[in-house]
């Protein structure tokens, strides 16, 4: 993220920082709670209603419970289901997302915009799984994904600063095991 930020620091752009709350959806949403994250990077000013942004983000996802009930299946002559438990010890998500915004309405110092990103991300998790007869292990998983993010927000300009409130939806391509689908609500400042 630091390399990425410094790469664009020479361009005619402003620094943006945006804390947010992320709500994972899909299978990961079963296990992970609403969690904090932060985006920061560079954003150009609107020019002919368009602007480009290059942001990075880091999210620390908190599990919904300490222990989850999971099952394993043993296939031999017959199929047998075994009950077990799973604990998520760590779940971190990191992303780089270039994107484009369009200003839809401008009213005084306020404006309403929408945009999209193409996030490229990686999440790392550490899980402890214990299913008697099937699996008993501590596993680390690194998953890399690419996706699409749609967003909309309102911003307020004052002096050399811009305050903004934004919601977005990130949808990743691929199987649920490796993707990261989530919604966020964040408030940020560009300066």
């Amino acid at each position, binding site marked *: 993220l630091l390399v990425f930020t410094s790469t664009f620091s020479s361009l005619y752009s402003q620094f943006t920082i945006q804390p947010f709350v992320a*709500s*994972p*959806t*899909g*299978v990961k*949403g*079963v*296990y992970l709670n609403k969690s904090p994250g932060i985006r920061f990077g560079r954003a150009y000013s609107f020019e002919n209603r368009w602007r480009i942004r290059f942001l990075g983000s880091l999210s620390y996802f908190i599990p*919904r*419970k300490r222990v*989850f*009930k*999971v*099952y394993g299946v043993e296939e031999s*002559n*017959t*199929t*047998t*289901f*075994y*009950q077990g438990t799973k604990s998520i010890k760590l779940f971190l998500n990191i992303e780089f997302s270039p994107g*484009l915004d*369009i200003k839809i309405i401008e009213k005084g110092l306020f404006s309403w915009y*929408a*945009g*999209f990103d193409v996030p490229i991300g990686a999440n790392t998790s550490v899980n402890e799984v214990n299913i008697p*007869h099937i699996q008993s292990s501590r596993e680390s998983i690194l998953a890399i994904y690419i996706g*699409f*993010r*749609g*967003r*909309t927000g309102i911003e307020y300009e004052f002096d050399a600063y811009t305050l903004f409130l934004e919601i*977005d*939806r990130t*949808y990743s391509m691929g199987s649920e095991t490796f993707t990261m689908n989530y*919604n966020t609500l964040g408030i940020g400042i560009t300066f």
Partner: protein
Amino acid sequence: MKKTLLYFLILFTFFSCKKNKSKYEDYFPELTMTSVILPDGHLQLNCSIKGEEYWPLTHYGFSYNDSSDVQINDNQVIVNPTSEKAFTHIFPKNFHPNKAYFFKAWVTNEAGYAESNIIEINHVMTTDVTPPCSNANNYFQYGSYTGSTANSPAFSSTNSDGIKFEISCTNSYKIIIQFTETPSTGIYDTNEETSFIFPYNCVIWVSSYNGLNYHTDKVNSNQLVFVNKNIDGTGTIELCGLTTFDNKTLTTKFSF
């Protein structure tokens, strides 16, 4: 054009959004199980499924054990649902009348599994089963040979493959019946395999010795074995014209 595409992508993104459940438990349905002892002594368990399903259910089952800490793999029976919101199973009378059993129902979905309430059932009623033939005790007929069995054979062995009876008969015949577990009153199905599919199968062999060699014949699968057992552990086993691999029939009744 660029603007239209952008709006389309944004709308698609937000409309593809699926709202999260507020609690982990909300991702699973609520199961309620009830039990009924049928007039013929069989135990029927019924499970109803309540709640909106976030993901489709993939498997439905019942489990039981003689401990209240029943696990889903304990004596597991996987069933098909009778409707979108219910599934049921009738257990044969394969329970010991002096024991307590703990039952629970469960379902699985992509995220995990849900369990029902646990029901404790004591003294499962076991009414006698009536075979289609009527023979005197110790009667033995195999193919064209008719003789008798020895009195009161005992369990000859107990191992991981189950409980085995060895019954000596006249003219050097021997019947071997191997059950998955100690049989109770009920009607069992025969099985060709020695690796059992729990819980209601047994395997039956008939061997004969001609003074030089033993010849072993096996009863074909999916035939009925009638067991009537008393509270003191004694009982009778009756076979009525079961067919074998050697195209013979086996009829016998013996007590244990």
